[in-house]
């Protein structure tokens, strides 16, 4: 019966239309699009799914950790609605605005406090900063192996068999536990929350930990603990202009398009 931990991040919805994306130049921050609630980063949801598939087969416990500030309970409780057992929030201004380094450190220390773990799942990269480092970072700090970009995870006693995505296929990797596994979309769709799950989740209260609870100094986490510095955040200026091929019917437009591309020496 494996003990599993899944790290889930609350992010601005990556499915929000690109046109709604705006940066506030004064603060170097993204303005949350109005009317679009934040979500759990999609790869992290798939990390929860990977854990649930193992729980379906072998039982065990899934503890979800979310780090941030002003986390929306509706959002961070979603993994509980999907079937995870417990939710721990590292919620404090000190945890905010970290980079991969300070975030991985905080999460690793929280996992150390949880104590008993066989498998730690993370999404391969977060849908906001796309850094793709925290999973490996947690593994390094805890001194355990990490397998990245998993599309399938099988739990064996003391080991896991992981299919890792490579450019033209996959590798089958056997790793000693405890280990960190980062999950990719090739794993398949994350399950929907069930009504039963939502009701059970509503009754559960997340455990909230502050830096002192996990034995870290505020200077080592969040913005203060960064090892990289954000100099500028900007939207690239789009210069292109699209030439629309017009015609009386879609079929005519298709033919005209071909002619236009021939004219442009593209075919």
């Amino acid at each position, binding site marked *: 019966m494996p003990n599993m931990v899944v790290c889930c991040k609350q992010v601005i919805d990556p499915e929000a239309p690109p046109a709604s994306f705006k940066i506030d130049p004064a603060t170097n921050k993204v303005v949350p699009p109005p009317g679009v609630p934040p979500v759990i980063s999609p790869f992290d949801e798939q990390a929860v799914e990977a854990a649930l598939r193992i729980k379906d087969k072998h039982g065990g416990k899934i503890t979800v950790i979310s780090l941030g500030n002003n986390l929306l309970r509706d959002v961070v409780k979603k993994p509980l609605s999907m079937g995870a057992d417990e939710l721990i929030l590292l919620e404090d201004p000190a945890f905010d605005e970290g980079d991969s380094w300070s975030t991985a450190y905080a999460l690793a220390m929280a996992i150390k406090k949880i104590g008993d773990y066989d498998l730690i799942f993370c999404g391969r990269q977060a849908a906001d900063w796309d850094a793709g480092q925290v999973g490996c970072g947690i593994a390094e700090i805890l001194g355990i192996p990490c397998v990245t970009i998993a599309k399938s995870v099988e739990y064996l006693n003391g080991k896991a068999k992981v299919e890792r995505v490579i450019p033209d296929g996959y*590798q089958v990797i056997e790793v000693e536990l405890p280990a960190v596994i980062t999950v990719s979309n090739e794993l398949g769709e994350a399950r929907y929350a069930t009504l039963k799950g939502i009701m059970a989740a509503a009754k559960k209260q997340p455990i909230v930990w502050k830096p002192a609870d996990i034995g870290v100094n505020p200077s080592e986490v969040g913005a203060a603990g960064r090892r990289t510095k954000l100099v500028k955040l900007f939207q690239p200026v789009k210069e292109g202009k*699209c030439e629309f*091929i017009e015609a009386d019917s879609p079929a005519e437009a298709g033919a005209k398009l071909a002619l236009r591309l021939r004219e442009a020496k*593209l075919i």
Partner: protein
Amino acid sequence: MADYKGVLVFGETVDGKLSSITAELLGCGRRLADELKESLSCILVGDKVADVATSAIAAGADKVYVAEDPLLKEYQTDAYLMVMEKAVKEIMPRILLLGQTSIGRDLAPRLAFRLGTGLSMDCIELSIDPSTKQLLQTRPVYGGNARAIFTTESFPQMATVRQKAMTPLEPDPSRKGEVVTLKVEIDPAKIKAKVLQTVKEEVVGIKLEDAQTVVAGGRGIGGPEGFKQLEELAKLLKGAVGASRPPCDNKWVPDTIQIGLTGKIVTPELYIAVGISGASQHIAGCSGAKNIVAINKDPEANIFKEARFGVVGDWKQVLPAFTEKVKELLAS
């Protein structure tokens, strides 16, 4: 406080030759090293890779470090990490570059944390700040909606670089350089994961990354059947078929043809996007295309902001006529 100097590139080889990403990294590294007035070296890790050293020198390296051992024949995280940690502590580069490849994505973060240094992944631009001499690391964020520039105070300053983002130098076989053999010490007890099997999918026809023409389908294709039309068109144009993420997630097409931020990066002359809305994560994979042509029934689709030519309409009606006309034109 010991001095970190020079640019070090982690080189990758494929079938006994320098990978194209390595040539790109060396092209970029050469420019950075020249600006810093420091040297550029390349490290080759593997089994029997010494022969590739001359190619690395021809591609711009002043010095090539070779770390060979049978245990390094295939990439394995723990083994490569041990070798790179020791090498970096010996070489002390100011800047360490790796490719944003299957190996780089796995090795770079772990190595950065092992070395206690900062890392930026998937950089599309690198430059030296003239006043601070720091490496300015530009990378896409928010699924490609934005760009961020980072610096790090710690050494080595680490970055992985997106494939095809940098230009290799013209290979110069007359370039002179030094080859240094590194002593490799791998503790087998530290190897905690092993590759049991590698399963590669057969690529029929042109590889997506190499194709000069790509015909890609999105959610709008609606199912696997529709992709047959795209295959027909791709064949006509001697190109390859790709897809955005939804067709892959829906299992209409294999994952291996996913084009995007976490999929393949393609830079063809011609990219025909059919039924693709143009979410930024997908654009990240095809923005390097010289000419994007889009067919989508939504006039507001984001893809039209990236495209040079567009048709607003149902691809089921547009594409067959387009393909017919292409057939005609190619035959004439």
